[in-house]
């Protein structure tokens, strides 16, 4: 669909209603009218199909096996045990029996049939007290917040701020309540004002994250709008604001590319909301609307130039931005195992590619359910698709640990680092954009890399590895030391040279290769790495230092520029 078409659909949607009720009621199709698939995203759901079946169904004169993904709006990924239990029930009752933890700290339900959409969303709102408004679509998406165990005083405040911001940036339309919650249609519900978004909302999706140094698990520089927390005497002083990051690109179109965000200035906590509204409305007014692949804020910023952009922001926010304050990140990964936060215990658990399921002899779903049934602490989804269980006292820690062991959820201790830290997007079979496998292939690909490392005596080397089913970059592959980006079944672009702090983009090393060719190249690189590396030098840094990769890449290295 072209940008103009999407814009027209949004404009004609009567504040995101479209013909969704009619589409939902149509018994002849398991899918929606095409225009409604655009509208549905704003309600937190994507129409997808089981692509494994697509060709066979078409040959049988049957429409694709339409199904829906539902994504929660859970700022910072914080859930109570009872919310977790509700999500678990909903996955069973209305979805495919699995939960998917995402890099934006949301929970996704997959395989939801059209007739189950409304019951599922009702159950989410009524039983889990979680909504899905604006979890997808051309609006501000779920806001990410560092989930790491460090600087937990800052985390609490930052999370509260993120939750408030998430509320403030919600669309005002009553459509969600009307369509999903049988809410009364208000007399004026066709004309709810959208003071922030206007009638066509944003040109494209918009992502905000809050990072709490030293952990950059949210990868704040990959976001449209980033806030890097800054502490003064252990209290939250404010945030360095970064703008214009974004992962997505279109294969073969040189006008599209991943970009790291650039620092804009510094704001105090009470300035976060007006600043965010200013950035959002600038993007609303200046963003490209004709061509969706050029519509993200990163291109708007490039087109406007930093100075004009900053001036526009300051004019709209009503205050001048303070100078950027320096920050220092040490990692973008997760911490696993037990830690202490604010005098309480917390536990980092590895979840394979974020998929909470009981399959292939594992018991992630029933194990986590058993832990939630204890009713203690909180769950925190991490931006690396893992889970933390936080806020436990000593007694609770013992109870949780017992169940972790009983259900075999403590595998993080036995994993080699490549697989443990690897990320993959969902991709096949449900993602309509996927060109190659990602989540399903991740374990095998990781193990393959580990074997290669092992052969060169690098068995325990931590190397950031990410797989994405297409160039859109949901698993943030452009920041990885090694990334595979799907181009066709079994074929990937190989990108190399990210760092492990989320501050350096990798570069294209080889295009559209078969897996075997990729492993051959990696094998040769690992051989050199084993020979030539400096003590503790990360693989990505090694590639740049030795000139294997041409040094033409943007790198912030944590310093204001």
């Amino acid at each position: 669909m072209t940008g103009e078409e999407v814009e027209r659909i949004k404009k004609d949607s009567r504040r995101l209603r479209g013909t969704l009720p009619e589409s939902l009621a149509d018994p002849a199709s398991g899918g929606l009218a095409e225009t409604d698939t655009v509208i549905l995203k704003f309600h937190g759901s994507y129409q997808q199909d089981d692509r494994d079946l697509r060709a066979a169904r078409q040959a049988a004169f049957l429409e694709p096996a339409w199904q829906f993904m539902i994504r929660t709006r859970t700022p910072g990924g914080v859930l109570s045990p009872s919310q977790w239990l509700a999500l678990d029930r909903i996955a069973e009752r209305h979805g495919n029996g699995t939960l998917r933890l995402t890099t934006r700290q949301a929970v996704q339900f997959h395989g939801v049939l059209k007739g189950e959409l409304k019951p599922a969303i009702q159950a989410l709102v009524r039983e889990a007290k979680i909504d899905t408004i604006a979890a997808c679509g051309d609006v501000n998406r779920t806001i990410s917040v560092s989930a790491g165990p460090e600087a937990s005083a800052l985390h609490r405040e930052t999370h509260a701020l993120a939750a408030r911001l998430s509320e403030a940036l919600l669309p005002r339309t009553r459509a969600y309540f009307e369509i999903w919650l049988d809410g009364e249609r208000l007399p004026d519900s066709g004309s709810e004002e959208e003071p922030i978004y206007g009638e066509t909302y944003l040109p494209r999706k918009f992502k905000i994250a809050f990072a709490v140094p030293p952990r950059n698990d949210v990868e704040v520089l990959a976001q449209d709008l980033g806030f890097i927390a800054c502490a003064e005497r252990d209290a939250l002083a404010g945030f360095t604001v970064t703008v214009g990051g974004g992962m997505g690109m279109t294969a073969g179109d040189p006008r599209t590319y991943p970009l790291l965000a650039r620092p804009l200035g510094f704001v105090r906590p009470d300035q976060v909301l007006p600043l965010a509204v200013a950035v959002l409305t600038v993007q609303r007014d200046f963003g490209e609307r004709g061509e969706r692949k050029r519509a993200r804020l990163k291109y708007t910023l490039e087109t406007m130039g930093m100075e004009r952009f900053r001036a526009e922001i300051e004019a709209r926010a009503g205050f001048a931005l303070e100078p950027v304050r320096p920050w220092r990140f040490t990692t973008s990964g997760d911490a696993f195992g037990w830690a202490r936060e604010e005098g309480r215990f917390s536990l980092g658990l590895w979840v394979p590619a974020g998929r909470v399921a009981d399959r292939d002899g594992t018991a992630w779903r029933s194990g986590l359910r058993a832990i939630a049934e204890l009713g203690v602490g909180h769950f925190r989804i991490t931006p690396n698709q893992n889970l933390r269980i936080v806020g436990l006292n000593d007694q609770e820690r013992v109870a949780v640990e017992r169940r972790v062991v009983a259900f075999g959820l403590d595998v993080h201790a036995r994993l080699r680092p490549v697989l443990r830290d690897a990320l993959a997007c969902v991709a096949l079979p449900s993602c309509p954009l996927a060109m190659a496998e990602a989540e399903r292939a991740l374990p095998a690909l990781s193990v393959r890399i580990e074997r290669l490392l092992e052969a060169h005596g690098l068995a325990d080397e931590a190397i950031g590895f990410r797989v994405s089913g297409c160039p859109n970059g949901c698993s943030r592959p452009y920041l990885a030391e090694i990334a595979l980006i799907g181009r066709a079944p079994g074929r990937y672009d190989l990108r190399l040279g990210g760092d492990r702090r989320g501050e350096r983009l990798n570069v294209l090393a080889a295009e559209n290769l078969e897996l075997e060719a990729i492993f051959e190249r990696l094998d040769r690189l690992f051989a050199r790495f084993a020979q030539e590396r400096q003590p503790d030098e990360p693989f990505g840094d090694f590639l740049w230092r030795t000139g294997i990769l041409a040094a033409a890449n943007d790198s912030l290295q944590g310093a204001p520029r």
Partner: protein
Amino acid sequence: MSGLLRPREPWPRGIEEGLLARLSGLDAEALLWVSGYALALARGGGKARSVSSASATEASLAVVYASQTGQARRVAERLARALEERGNALRLLDAAELNVRTLAGLGRVFFAVSTHGDGDPPDAARALFAELAKAKRGSLARLGFAVLALGDSSYPRFCAAGRWLDQRLVELGAERLLPLAEADLDIERVAAPWQDEVLAKVASLSQDPRPVAAILPLPRAVPHGREHPLKAELLDQRRITFGADARDVRHLVLGFDGDAPPFEPGDALGVVFAHDDARVERVLAAAGLRGEERVEVQGQNWPIARWLAERAELTRLSRRLVEALAAVHQDHELRLALEDASAWQALVARFQVAEALARWPRPWTASELSAALTPLSPRLYSLAGSRSEEGEVAVLTVGVLRTETPAGPRTGACSGFLAGLREGQRLEVFWEPNPRFRLPEDDRDLVMIAAGTGIAPFRAFLQERIARGSRGRHWLIYGARRLREDFLYQLDWLRWRKRGALHRLSLAFSREPQRRAYVQDRLREEGSELLRWLSEGAAIYVCGGTAMGQGVEAALLRILESEGRCSPEEARERLLALSAEGRYRRDLY
């Protein structure tokens, strides 16, 4: 006129200027009359005879058929031809064209009447039968008649329509010229002797047969029916349902050597098939035969195994077989089945031939066995595509019958045969015209009601209507099990709805967890809309199983009663009237 069509010399001089010139300007009916006359002349040896005005209403002889699948029509056509060859003037009529008054004026009438469904007359004869049921005694006092009833003894009310007609005509004062003849699936066994009796009867009645040319229906340019099988090749075969427990439905495309026969949407294709070896083996084993024993059937000598494979009905029990078993076994179940319709149905549902032979063993000779079995009837499948869209091929939608029984899994004889064919394999088929179920001549709206594979002819209808640029509206009311699994040709219907060729689509899924429904439920819900369509001239077409057809009819009657505010009697009248107008047509199996 092409020279190739000219007969050999002597070609009467001046015929072009004289006779043929006069033909120009005649309308179709007149031209048909002339052809029929010429044909009769030709059959009579070409000698000119005096032509009594062959306006056939004056004929004292008529052959009437009430046919659902074409069987009765074929028997009637053959009888008419035989009568005509002996110089009798006659009319060959479809029961649909008759009412009691016109029937009363026909003189001597020979009926071929089939029975379908639960003892029902063919749709074409329903109006006539309903009128006969209400007619006054004595109203057919001047009529002489004989009835050949066609039926299938595996159904409970065997030959019921013919039996009823035979009885009713006598009650109305008509004279029965010959006793009722009842033919089972092996029609010839009864039909051939009956035809001889009719010929003899007619000869004895008309001492002085007037030499009169008759109007015969023109023989079709292209042979059709099971006596004219065509070689076909399977071009494509694929399953079009999804899901482990969904019914196995196949989409088959058959190509012909050259053009396809000139079938139209609504017509059917008959498939000539043989039983698979395993089925034959089971029958032989149960009967204690080796297979090479020879049998003499209708003048042909066969090894029993080959006769069973190619000529015998092995999936459906015949009455003769059950009688043969009951003669040896003092068995309650067998005896009851022969007496009681529902017990018969239960028996047929539980046992196929091999299973019955095994359950009630007795010694068999090959000829005893062949005499106890009915001949294999080829299976008919509605065409699921129109030539305008699919080209010179036949498209069939075949539900592969598979049931689990205590005796093991069963597969439909013909559907199993078709499902086992691979692309490129050849088979024999024949064209079975179904004039009662074709599209209306005009552009009127269509309400198409189907369940399961009954959707097949409607796909052909819509393809044809779209190709013709028809302005009529289309409403499909369809019943399947589950949306994702067996909404047959879903992509076509959705595409047609999107482009505005399908104006209304009502669906009922019988196995969806939340909203189980059947087409009858949709009809009831949308009854007032249906009446609106009817009042604007729509024609209703129903295709599916017999039970579904009965359910739909009950629902239609209820709609006419409640929405149309009339009595049950009036509703029935209304439906009969629609049927007589060709606006209520059914193809049930």
